[in-house]
């Protein structure tokens, strides 16, 4: 797998990153390097091996269905870039 400029653009779009021209050319090559490094994985026989997503093969612990939280609106407002009438604001979205 070689990373081309259009692959990078697709990834940047998915990741919501706006890249400058300089960043793009540097990233094409460093991403390409990174992916060729990890392609060593492709040589390994992993047939029948279960993927391990969590250390120690842990299982999910559940909590009781209880309301333990209170209104945090003012704390959230203090750290919000833009809030009005208790609502977070973003540029208008047209559905």
């Amino acid at each position, binding site marked *: 797998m070689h990373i081309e400029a259009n692959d990078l653009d697709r990834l940047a779009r998915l990741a919501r990153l706006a890249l400058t021209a300089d960043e793009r050319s540097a990233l094409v090559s*460093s991403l390409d390097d*990174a992916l060729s490094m*990890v392609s060593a994985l492709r040589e390994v026989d992993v047939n029948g091996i279960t993927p*391990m997503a*969590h250390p120690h093969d842990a299982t999910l612990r559940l909590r009781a269905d209880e309301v333990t939280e209170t209104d945090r609106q003012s704390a959230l407002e203090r750290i919000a870039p833009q809030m009005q009438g208790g609502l977070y604001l973003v540029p208008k979205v047209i559905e």
Partner: protein
Amino acid sequence: MSGLRFADIDGWRAALATDRAAALAEAVRMATASQTELNALITPAPITPIADHVGSGIGDLAGIPYAHKDLFCSEGVRATAGSRMLAEFISPYDATVSARLNAAGAVCIGKANMDEFAMGSSNENSAFGPVRNPWNVERVPGGSSGGSAALVAAGVVPFATGSDTGGSVRQPAAFCGVTGFKPTYGRVSRYGMIAFASSLDQAGVIARHARDCAQVLNVLAGFDPKDATSVERPTEDFVAACARGVRGMRIGVAKELYSAGVRSEVAECTRRALTELEQAGAVLVDIQLPRLPLSVPAYYVIAPAEASSNLARYDGVRYGHRAEHARDLNDLYSRSRSEGFGDEVKRRILVGTFVLSAGYYDAYYLRAQRIRRLIAEDFARAFAKVDVIAGPTTPDVAFTLGEKSNDPLAMYAADINTVAVNLAGLPAMSLPCGFVDDLPVGLQLIGPAWGETQLFAAGHGYQQISDWHQKTPRVLS
């Protein structure tokens, strides 16, 4: 009050008992003074007024000053994670680690510098400038917990918090000649620790002495209902474990930890340490970790994958950096993120996005998770025969600032001896074991899951027969 530089926790206790206000004032003075040369703090100020701590003396770490890695949230205090994205972020809540340290009475003298979102091995990826290595200010302190390691090495604080996703506690500890401890995944709550890669991240401690790491871990360890990956286990006393000694302990030596990339002088230091341990009654056993070489590629798939998703929340909507004059929603997202994140973070987000994307998921992400299991199995097999595994923490000593900043791959490759531990979720520590080019070398000890007590026995045992951890860099002002 003088004479506190390089004091250990017990030394601080004695000083605090004599004149609490003076001792705390000295802690703050040393921290502030270190900034010019080390830049080890992002927020060089106590998180609660020092005056609040004068007079109170409750808790296992009452009055003990420490530096807190800037990815731990503390209520009312800025938590930047080394990123421009969070340069103005004041956390409205306490991380469990912060709350436990507060409850123990420890006094945070500032938030420690770090690689942005804990991504890096040199601290050059901080949006707040690089940290310098106290042993040689032209050298990097390691990363990502570089600020924490530098402050402990400079004798400013007896301990500092860190986090370790692929070696971020152990590698800077090695580079700075101090002791770094990374617990078993699930031992310390991750709640309130700003995430890099959730299945690998674990909070840790850096101190000059293994025993001080144990004192702090006694406070940090424990089940937390707020973290679904926190594990319920009976309480263990890690300080008591230190006294067990190394006699009869089986120490595994794997040739894979001495691969071609490991500098011979570094290897030599660690072998000497192993010989000393053997003389003290430990038994050296040859073991194999055949899949260890695959740990770097597996890590550099899994960690970026999780990071790409963990860092999606930084979108300029609810907190953090928000681009001005956005034309539309996507412009707001893309520019907020591009302005807020540094190069290495962007690179890893893009790699992570790639390995999870349609058509590549199986070949990269899923395959890496399979290899992760193989690596964990290698360790499990080895630990059937030995109590701990030993080897160099890093292939080389601290490098010069800027030397590798344009070569991320070289930097990744140097993680070869640390990342496998995170993939398997194991506890490990780095101990000072010598010098090469007048720079510290780290000996890494790896334990089986939940085997912290035997690690402390070995680590403290080694520090009883060596004095590398007592060495100090030239004293700063």
